[in-house]
């Protein structure tokens, strides 16, 4: 990493349905050391109050598109943690 790279990324995290209930809120702002991935963010949310209730596998979306744990995160990305989908 060059000296000019920011040392952290700050992310807007959206929680829905059962996950919002578990965490007691539907939005979080999380700052992580850079570079950060979706997996890093989920690990951090697990450490929040109520976060231990999250299942082993958590589906996530970054900027409205489904992501994997390895997806890199950039400053101000919108990350959504999605409980098991139940549409239809």
């Amino acid at each position, binding site marked *: 990493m060059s000296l000019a790279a920011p040392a952290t990324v700050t992310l807007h995290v959206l929680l*829905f349905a059962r996950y919002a209930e578990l965490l007691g809120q539907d939005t979080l702002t999380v700052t992580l050391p850079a570079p950060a991935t979706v997996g890093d963010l989920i690990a951090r949310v697990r450490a929040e109050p109520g976060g231990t209730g999250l299942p082993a596998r958590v589906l996530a979306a970054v900027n409205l598109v489904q992501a994997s744990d390895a997806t890199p995160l950039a400053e101000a990305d919108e990350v959504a943690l*999605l*409980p098991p989908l139940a549409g239809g």
Partner: protein
Amino acid sequence: MKWPSSRRSRAAEPVSNPVARLVLGPIDAAALAAEVARPDRGGVVSFVGLVRDHHGGRTVIRLEYSAYAPMAEAELARIVSEAGERWPAIVAAEHRLGSLAIGDAAVAVVAAAAHRGDAFEACRHVIEQIKARVPIWKREYYADGSVAWVDPTAAAGAAPAAAGQGRSR
């Protein structure tokens, strides 16, 4: 002479605005079908999903659908567009959100094609993709006063995951 220009011009019509909507009021499947049916798409297949009155052996009295709306709309539009590329069919889909009563239509998918096989396949594919990809959640309210978030990934036949309040099992 086999493909008169009138037919060719119809087939080339741009599908610039996929019909893919989240709605808060009742779904009218017939109106949705009218949006995609055309005289050169003579086979029209519709799927309508109704709110069921039971789940996992418990009596459901109503339910609520919620969504990550911006992503749900985008994903629904992607699914409909993809189906239109994979099959020679035009597809429209609507999903309802909010509070629904037993028997209400929660989702409708309509596929219109010149050949019925394409319409059946496109319609089936789109409803499967909606269930797999669109960020929508369902909360069921039971006759015994309990409430639960539905988890279709849970073991088949298992009762819905507890919502943690007033559950009587």
